[in-house]
Structure formats: structure tokens, C-alpha cells
């Protein structure tokens, strides 16, 4: 209808104002999103990546009408999110990660029936639609159990079924794969891909780079409330082009050693990630400099595990973009 884009965001901003304390009220302001502009085409699968607190959820909530933007404009299917709220709501589905957002003491079936009514799914279509969705998310046969007895992944799948009840044109998925086991996550990705291939526009946030790489047509990396990079996964990967990545598994690396790595010639970025007892050191360097021997020299005396030198992945590109923004 009219607009060529499913989602248009223009200079979106959102500031949270909060008052804390009753006797001596103190005002705090958080600029969660500071001027975000992008468009998503119809049927496109668009990813929003970024570190915790980057403003992804806030952006989604402005687009799905739960939050009014502090400034800027946004349209979904050509309808203004602030003024034509109901028109927008009719056309969108919203699924967020985690186990909240459901009526725990009701069965999955009752939850779906209630939301089918809320979304005005015609009475004679409800039964079929609900059965179809229960099947799609693999909850068929357990729909009469109360949700409080569901595992996290089952709740997440129920969430997804709920978001699809009214066959929305645009689907907002905020970390839908949180707490979902690998097999179910793979099914979830297939479901999302199927939806997109049949014309549903999807806006997805996730912290799993492989998921974004596999699914998304285009990705925006957002940090600190601003878009830092936008492009296809291949284009973003090229951001890390001309780099090489050395990965070292180590036990008990002191801060000082990490700082020393950062100072090595040719090194662009370093990151440390704790994985149980071991730490995973990631060192980005210019491709033409071989830093591996230098790195190992700096780490002399520290117990090391696997050492690996490889081409950059989307995750490396993401790390590069985000740390450049910081």
C-alpha cells in the first residue's frame, strides 16, 4: 500500500526521563537512542546488532508503538507510528526474548485464544490458525498444560506463535533465540527465513552473530544509540578486511599482558572473553603483519591452550565496528 518500504525511521531519538527518590527527587536522563535513520524494504529480513544497552529494544519499541519517540518520525507500512497507532498495530507482530509476557496460570491454548480475540482473528478461523501455529512451533499436544510448567524454550516458542496469530506484515523479533536450545534455535531460524521468503518483513535483534549472518539480508550495527555501520553481512565483513585474527586460549592472563598486546605494532584491537576456567584472547591485526609470534612472546610464562590464526568473520567485523565506536 503506497509506501515502498515496510519500515522507515527518520532521525529517531528517545530520551528516558526518570525521577528517583520521593523526598529529594533527582532527575536522571538517559539518551537511549540518538538519531537513528534507516529503511527496511517489504519482505526484507533486517538485523539490528549491538552491545547491551545500545538502544536496540528502545528502537524496536518506538517502531512498534510501545514508546513515543522523543523526536524524529517513523512509519510502518506507510502509517505513522505516533498518530496512526491502530493502523500500525494491526499489521505488526512483536516477540521478545525471555520468559515474561505470558499468562502463566493459563494454558498455551487459552493464551492464544485470548490474543486471537485481542487481534480480532475471525472466530471461525481461530481454531485452525491456533492449531497450525502450535504445530509450527512444536507445542502441539502440550497446549492444554499451564504455561507455568513450561520450560524457557517452550515459552519462547509460545511467544512466537502468539506473535504470528494475526499473520502480521511486519514482525519485530527482539532476541527471540534467547534460552532456546540449538536444535530449536535452528528450527526457529528456518521459521523466520520461511516467513521472510513468503513476504513478511522481519526486524530481528540478536547477540548471535552466526544467526544474523545466516538470516539477515542487511544488518545495522548500533552502539551508543547511533548506527555505526549498515550493510549486507558480506559488506560488513569487508569492514574487517585487511585484517587477520589471532585467537589464543589462555589460563590466568593478567590485565598488564593484555595491555601489552594492545601496544604491539600492527595490532588493531584486542578482546578477552572468559569461558569458564580459560580466557579467549582475540587479537585483530593488519593482515600483512604477522603478530602471532609477538603475541606468544608477550604471553610467555602463561599457560596456553589452542592458538589459531584465521580470516575475520562477521563477529570480528562486529567487534571492530563496536570497539571503534567506543
Amino acid at each position, binding site marked *: 500500500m503506497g509506501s515502498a518500504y515496510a519500515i522507515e525511521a527518520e532521525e529517531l531519538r528517545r530520551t*528516558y*526521563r526518570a525521577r528517583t527518590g520521593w523526598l529529594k527527587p533527582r532527575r536522571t536522563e538517559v539518551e537511549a537512542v540518538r538519531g537513528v535513520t534507516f529503511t527496511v524494504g517489504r519482505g526484507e529480513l533486517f538485523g539490528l546488532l549491538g552491545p547491551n544497552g545500545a538502544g536496540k529494544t528502545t528502537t524496536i519499541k518506538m517502531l*512498534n*508503538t*510501545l*514508546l*513515543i519517540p522523543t523526536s524524529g518520525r517513523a512509519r510502518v507500512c506507510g502509517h505513522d507510528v505516533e498518530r496512526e497507532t*491502530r493502523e500500525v*498495530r*494491526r499489521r505488526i507482530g*512483536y516477540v*521478545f526474548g*525471555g520468559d*515474561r*509476557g*505470558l*499468562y*502463566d*496460570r*493459563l494454558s498455551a491454548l*487459552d493464551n492464544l*485464544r*485470548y*490474543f486471537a*480475540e*485481542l*487481534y*480480532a482473528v*475471525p*472466530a471461525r478461523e481461530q481454531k485452525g490458525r491456533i492449531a497450525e501455529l502450535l504445530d509450527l512451533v512444536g507445542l502441539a499436544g502440550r497446549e492444554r498444560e*499451564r504455561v507455568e510448567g513450561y520450560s524457557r524454550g517452550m515459552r519462547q516458542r509460545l511467544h512466537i506463535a*502468539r506473535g504470528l496469530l494475526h499473520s502480521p506484515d511486519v514482525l519485530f523479533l527482539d532476541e527471540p533465540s534467547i534460552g532456546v536450545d540449538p536444535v530449536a534455535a535452528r528450527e526457529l531460524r528456518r521459521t523466520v527465513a520461511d516467513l521472510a521468503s513468503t513476504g513478511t518483513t522481519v526486524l530481528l535483534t540478536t547477540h548471535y552473530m552466526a544467526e544474523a549472518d545466516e538470516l539477515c539480508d542487511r544488518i545495522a550495527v548500533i552502539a551508543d544509540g547511533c548506527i555505526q555501520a549498515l550493510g549486507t553481512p558480506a559488506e560488513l565483513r569487508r569492514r574487517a578486511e585487511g585484517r587477520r585474527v589471532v585467537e589464543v586460549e589462555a589460563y590466568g592472563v593478567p590485565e598488564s599482558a593484555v595491555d601489552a598486546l594492545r601496544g604491539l605494532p600492527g595490532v588493531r584491537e584486542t578482546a578477552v572473553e572468559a569461558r569458564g576456567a580459560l580466557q579467549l584472547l582475540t587479537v585483530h591485526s593488519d593482515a600483512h603483519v604477522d603478530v602471532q609470534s609477538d603475541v606468544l612472546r608477550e604471553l610467555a610464562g602463561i599457560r596456553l591452550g589452542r592458538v589459531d590464526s584465521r580470516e575475520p568473520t562477521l563477529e570480528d567485523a562486529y567487534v571492530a565496528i563496536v570497539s571503534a565506536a567506543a
Partner: protein
Amino acid sequence: MSTLRLLTVGTLLHVKQISRSPFEIAIALVVPVVQATLAVYLFRSSGEQHRLLEAAVGAGVMGVWSSVLFGSGGAIQGQRWQGTLEMIMLAPRRPVLVVLPITIATGLTGTYALLATLVWGRLLYGIRLDFAHPAAFVVAAVVCVVALGMFGLLLAATFVLMRNANALANTLEYPVWLVSGMLVPITVLPAWTTPIAAVLPTTWGARALREATSGGPVWPSLGICLGISLLCLVLGGFALTHVERRARAAATLALA
């Protein structure tokens, strides 16, 4: 048609959700016994059988009111916690259609308190359940529940906006009991409460029930009760639409 279905299905499912809460079940088991006892000991001295039944009915209505008050506040707050408040407000519906089933459901679960108070009164204290106008009593009880649900809607409008809704709810329980004469006749209250009592639908609802219990013209009070409640519904509807917008601006639909 679809609106009516939404209201019905919504109300039924919310009754289900509320009545399965362990907290509600515990309250439902204890409170009616306490209320029946209270009614009996407060009025036994007067020695009149009819006064006893009247007191039990009054105590029961207090139960309905408590349920609506804590229900509208609690349900909104609870749903904020559960994360369902955002989900239901996100539906392409007028906010009033989304919230009304919740407040009516609280009224319905409260009716249980009214019935249970009467039953316990009968079983434990032998209060004779001879209503002056039994049929009118049933109609009045139904109207009362719906009316309180609509009044609850107006309260709910405040609760959607305020994150500390429960604090407000706590302060409203006893004053409304007293002022609307659920337990003691309004005539014994100080004069300044009269205008407040006159605009509260609870006053007229309690009065209609009392009249149905011990004799009196039930319908005028019931009519006024219904009228005020419909006004509450209209006001609550507008307030909710306004408040929903405010809540989206202030980000109070979610916890954080």
C-alpha cells in the same frame, strides 16, 4: 460482535487467571469466614435477625470491593511484572476494551466472597437467609459486580500510569468501605462524608443490596448505581485512552 466476544472471552480468561493465584485462593478461604464473624459479633447485640443478614451482606460487598480495588491495581501491576501489560496494550483495540474485562473479572471473583460470606454466616452462626426480595437481590448482586468493575476501570486508568499503584490501592480500601456504608449505615457517619458517599457507586450498590435483603425499594438505588457506573465507564474509557498515550511517552508500560 467481535467486541462482545472479546469482552466475554477476556473476562472468562482473566477470572481463570486470577482464581488460580495461590494468594487469591488463600484469601478466598479465610476472608469470608472473618467477615461473617465480624458481621455477627458487631450486630449480635442488636438481636435482630434481619440486621444480621444485612451485616453479612454488607461484609460480602466489602469483599467484592476489596477484590475490585486490589484486582484493578494488582492486575495492572501484576501484568506489568509479567510483561503482559505491554502485550495487551499493543493490541489494535481501544484500551477500554482491553482493561474492562480485567476489572469485571475482579468483580466476579469478588462475588465469590459475597456468596461465601453468606454461606459461612449460615453454617457457623445460623444466620437465616430469608431475603425480602430474593430475585431483586440476585439482579442487584449482578449489577453491583458489573458496576464495581466499571468503577475499577476508572481506578485502573490511574494504575496504568502509576508504577506505585499498590500504594494507592492500600489507602482506598477502608475509607470506601466506611463512606459507602457497606458495614455501618451512612446515617451514623459525619455529615461531610455524605456528598462523597453520594457519588460513589459502591454506596448505591450496597444500599440496593440492603434493601433487597430487608425490604425497601431496590430499583431506584440500583438505577443510580448503574448510572454512576456507566459514567465511570465513559470517563474511564477516555481516561484510559489519554493515559495509554502518556504511558507510552513516559515508558511506564514496562518495568524497565
